């Protein structure tokens, strides 16, 4: 066997990718089966979505405010201060708000799911579900992944809107832009090609955060140390995946001529 084949066969990195792929395949298999856990899904939407509103809202507002304050001097230098609302809105909606929201959620939701399921695994709660005849994958994994997939776009849309309010405040700290002029410039420059791809990619961000958090927690080992490791690696891998998905999404929108 040549060294490359040996590496492919024994690489823990490739093994992990394979296991995540199988875990994802199982998710789609389970979601296609009848009898979904709707009550638990709504419960997870509440925890993942509603309980993240304040964090995402505050972060979104600060993002808009800081970006506007930071961008202003450069635009002033080029005599393009009037372009400030347009530039800030495009930057926020297309890239910054969805990605920062996803990273915050990777931290909050990814680690939360990883730690919760990890703790359930090491205290045999998942085994207890299995012996009671409940499908723990469907009850724990499908509901959390679905909730993360559907709540991320909602949270990102909220962050988009609030960050634009932050931008308005930022534009008026040093300058003077009227409410009507600000929003006119924002909506004048934004089109569906900016909003839709950005919204669509947040579904994938949410899916990645949910599936990685669940995978890491579901197969947690080695007691409490393993739970901590599951939570940490869930955040790291989910954050990395957010950037990879973003990179792919940018290439696709570029190919489709939406940039």
């Amino acid at each position, binding site marked *: 066997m040549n060294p490359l084949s040996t590496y492919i066969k024994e690489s823990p990195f490739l093994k992990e990718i394979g296991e995540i792929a199988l875990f994802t395949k199982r998710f789609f298999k389970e979601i296609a089966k009848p009898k979904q856990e709707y009550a638990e899904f709504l419960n997870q939407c509440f925890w993942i979505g509603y309980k993240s509103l304040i964090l995402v809202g505050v972060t979104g507002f600060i993002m808009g405010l800081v970006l506007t304050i930071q961008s202003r001097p450069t635009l002033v230098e080029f005599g393009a201060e009037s372009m400030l609302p347009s530039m800030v809105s495009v930057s926020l909606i297309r890239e910054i708000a969805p990605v920062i929201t996803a990273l915050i959620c990777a931290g909050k939701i990814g680690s939360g799911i990883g730690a919760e399921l990890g*703790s*359930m695994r090491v*205290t*045999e*709660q998942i*085994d*207890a*579900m*299995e*012996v*009671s*005849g*409940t*499908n723990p994958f469907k009850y724990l994994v499908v509901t959390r992944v679905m909730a993360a997939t559907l709540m991320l776009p909602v949270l990102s849309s909220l962050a988009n809107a609030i960050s634009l309010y932050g931008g308005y405040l930022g534009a008026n700290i040093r300058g003077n832009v009227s409410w009507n002029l600000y929003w006119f410039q924002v909506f004048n420059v934004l089109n569906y090609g900016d909003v839709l791809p950005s919204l669509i990619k947040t579904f994938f961000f949410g899916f990645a955060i949910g599936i990685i958090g669940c995978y890491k927690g579901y197969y947690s080992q080695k007691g409490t140390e393993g739970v901590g490791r599951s939570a940490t690696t869930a955040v790291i891998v989910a954050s990395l995946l957010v950037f990879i998905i973003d990179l792919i999404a940018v290439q696709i929108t570029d190919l489709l001529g939406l940039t």
Partner: protein
Amino acid sequence: MENEPIIEVRQVNKSFGKNHVLRDFSMDVNQGENLVILGKSGSGKSVLIKCIIRLIDADSGSIKVLGNEINGLDQEPLDDLRSKIGFLFQSNALYDSMTVRQNLEFPLRIHWTKEERLKNGYSAVMEALTDVGLAHTIDMMPSELSGGMRKRIALARALILRPKVILYDEPTTGLDPVTGREISELMVSVQKKYNATSVIISHDMNCIRITSNRVIMLIEGRNYADDTFENLKKSNDPKIKEFFT
């Protein structure tokens, strides 16, 4: 029917890497008896009962529970069969984000219809809690309970579907001798009330003495001895003797 095997284990093998835990292990468990499996820590006792309920797949051999070959059983019939088996985990495995009531209602979600749950759910929960003497804890969280109370709640959850077989994984481990004896006596009383067949994994001699009708000694992955507690206690076999001294 009396003395008809409820569980038949035939030549079961299970390895974890190079560690051969079960080696051609065989045993029968008869209707209504309390069988204790005794062995050293790490001898494969917990692996055996997890194979019986198929939380772990055996590498080879046959395991029949209530007439069903458990290996190769599809998910739906396996879930049906599991509804007839109660399992008490060593760590209790109570759902820590749910109240006692929700813990007990959890198995009902799958095996009872919504109408049945609405009509009889509360009374079933109360009956199981009364059987273990903890009806007053119904709205408490597991974190508010002592170790012995958690063990009783876990037992109540195992009983909620009125199982024909109850599997106990080291039910008295981590409990003080008094609470351990109470749990052992409780196991005997619920076995009588539910007319269930019990398989008990333990190395607590008091628990074994109180609960067992028969004891199997699991040594080096094999069914080394199979007799009553009193007869094994009198044995001159050094491997058996070291457990009773």
